[in-house]
């Protein structure tokens, strides 16, 4: 009586009768989960004065979750208003489904904290970046302790893993290191030669390329290649182990994940980086020589002798020291981000990205510091 008209789309599926105090809702026809399925929210106002609601089915052909959803909304609303719902006219199946929906009382839904405003967001980001540094120092401390255990033979790790890591970092990186060093050597030679040729001093390409590559460029390029190749891999490997609770499993065995995972990776990189840097330097020099001889008509022996006289041991020392530092920092960034990884696939992606960014950032910072230090020392 006196119920408003239902929307025409719904008349095939829903009917309301009874009184305003004791309304009856009848499901009928076919209930299928589609966008035009009747929604309780739309008819709730018509039941505002109800003291008792009956729900039932008349000529209900078939139904799926949409009907259960509708009825669940009726029951939920009725419970909130403390009124009774008579389900006796429902088919057994629907009644049992409904019982299952309410079988376990739901805990109050978790409040999601409001998203911070822009200013607060900037503040949080700064705080977050700031808190990163103590975490890095702590991690570095743990690595040093672990190194102590390693040196005294108390660190537990697997030799087989270590061999694999060495192979992964060293020999397998050779193709990409060769390619990039050769190209960079070529670029250096060209840039220098064009200028030097103006003065008829093409032979000094040898000095430029030799010293430039050995002292700076080989180490820098190796560092950056390793950040993208190995640092990212470390973060992804350790991060995935974090997701799968593999690191927790190690801890419960009393095995330090630093000893077992981090230190071998750091050492593998630190051992292999000098070799890679040296190799990159030699490839760079060969590239310079190729260009000078083929393009700028410098004699092969002249170039060879000039390179030998230009290069001193200290240049190699500087290059190798830099390379080793960069490699250590790349491994550090990769392992740190891996250990800090959260417990989801997305977190693994984020820590991998962050490992590369942090690796390159640390390389750049240390490159500046080392250059100034070597300058001051006059090396």
């Amino acid at each position, binding site marked *: 009586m006196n119920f408003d008209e239902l929307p025409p789309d719904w008349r095939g599926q829903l009917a309301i009768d009874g009184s305003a105090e004791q309304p009856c809702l009848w499901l009928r026809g076919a209930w299928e*989960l589609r*966008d035009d*399925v009747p929604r309780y929210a739309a008819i709730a106002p018509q039941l505002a004065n109800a003291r008792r609601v009956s729900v039932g089915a008349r000529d209900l052909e078939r139904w*799926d979750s949409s009907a259960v959803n509708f009825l669940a909304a009726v029951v939920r609303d009725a419970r909130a208003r403390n009124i009774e719902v008579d389900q006796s006219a429902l088919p057994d199946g629907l009644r049992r489904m409904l019982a299952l929906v309410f079988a376990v009382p739901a805990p109050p*839904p*978790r409040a999601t904290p409001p998203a911070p405003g822009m200013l607060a967001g900037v503040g949080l980001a700064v705080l977050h970046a700031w808190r990163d540094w103590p975490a890095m120092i702590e991690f570095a401390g743990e690595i040093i302790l672990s190194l102590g255990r390693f040196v005294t033979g108390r660190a537990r790790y697997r030799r087989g893993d270590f061999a694999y890591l060495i192979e992964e970092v060293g020999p397998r990186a050779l193709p990409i290191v060769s390619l990039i060093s050769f190209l960079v050597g070529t670029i250096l030679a060209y840039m220098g030669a064009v200028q030097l040729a103006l003065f008829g001093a093409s032979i000094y390409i040898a000095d430029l390329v030799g010293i430039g590559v050995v002292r700076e460029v080989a180490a820098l390029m190796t560092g950056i290649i390793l950040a993208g190749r190995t640092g990212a891999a470390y973060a992804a490997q350790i991060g995935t182990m974090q997701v799968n609770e593999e690191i927790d499993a190690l801890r419960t065995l009393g095995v330090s994940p630093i000893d077992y995972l981090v230190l071998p990776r750091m050492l593998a990189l630190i051992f292999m980086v000098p070799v890679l840097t040296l190799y990159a330097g030699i490839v760079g020099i060969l590239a310079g020589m190729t260009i000078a001889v083929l393009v700028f008509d410098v004699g092969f022996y002249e170039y060879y002798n000039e390179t030998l006289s230009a290069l001193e041991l200290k240049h190699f020392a500087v290059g190798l020291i830099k390379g080793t530092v960069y490699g250590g920092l790349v491994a550090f960034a990769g392992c740190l981000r891996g250990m800090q990884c959260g417990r989801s696939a997305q977190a693994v992606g984020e820590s991998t990205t962050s490992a590369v960014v942090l690796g390159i950032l640390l390389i750049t910072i240390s490159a500046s510091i080392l250059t100034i230090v070597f300058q001051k020392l006059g090396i």
Partner: protein
Amino acid sequence: MSAAQSKQAAPHIEIRNLTMAYGDYVIQRDLDFTINRGDIFVIMGGSGCGKSTLLRQMIGLVRPAKGTVLYDGVDYWAASPAQQVQRQRGFGILFQAGALWSSLTLAENVALPLQEFTTLAPDLIDEIVSLKLSLVGLGGFEQFYPSEISGGMKKRAGLARAMALDPEILFFDEPSAGLDPLSSRRLDDLILELRDSLGATVVLVTHELPSIFAIANNSVFLDADTRTMIAYGDPRELAEHGVEKVRTFLKRGAA
């Protein structure tokens, strides 16, 4: 429901002469059985005998080495990719390890199939998502991430996701592993309810004897030693009159 009853005993899934192998290593050979519409069908067998592998071949993840799977008489593996996808939309799958998307909340996990395969309005999707989570006893956990809930809860959340689209066929790989006896009972009720109300066919791998006897009306037993099926039929019958190995299995080694 009447629809479910009238189509009863019509073959829904047929496994025909199926051999599965990883490379040259044959896991099971010559599997041949039929699952009827509205069946609750259990795949039994010792650990490592190939139950999960069989499930993966049935749901179209891995092509069988030999033989095929028919749905409603249509050869799945001979169908075009578009038809295969169409068929897969009617599947609801619970993987053995849950396989929830770790970067999404429970609500987003359940909502994803609805968003991908229906044109429902977002608020209706939200309602359905809450409903499905309530059905598995996870109402109120919508905003939790998989890493923030227990192992058994992950199982149930996976189940809610499997049910999202009111699928025609539900594949469950050990749904009650990691559930307490009460939740396990509730799960059995839910499976029966899904079958009765929605007319779904349910294929499940389980070791839970109470569950098997409570809900299954047909089953197959895969044997790891002979690498083929050694029993096929109602588990209650098999427990009494089956071959010895199966009787022992179904009586917890006490036959």
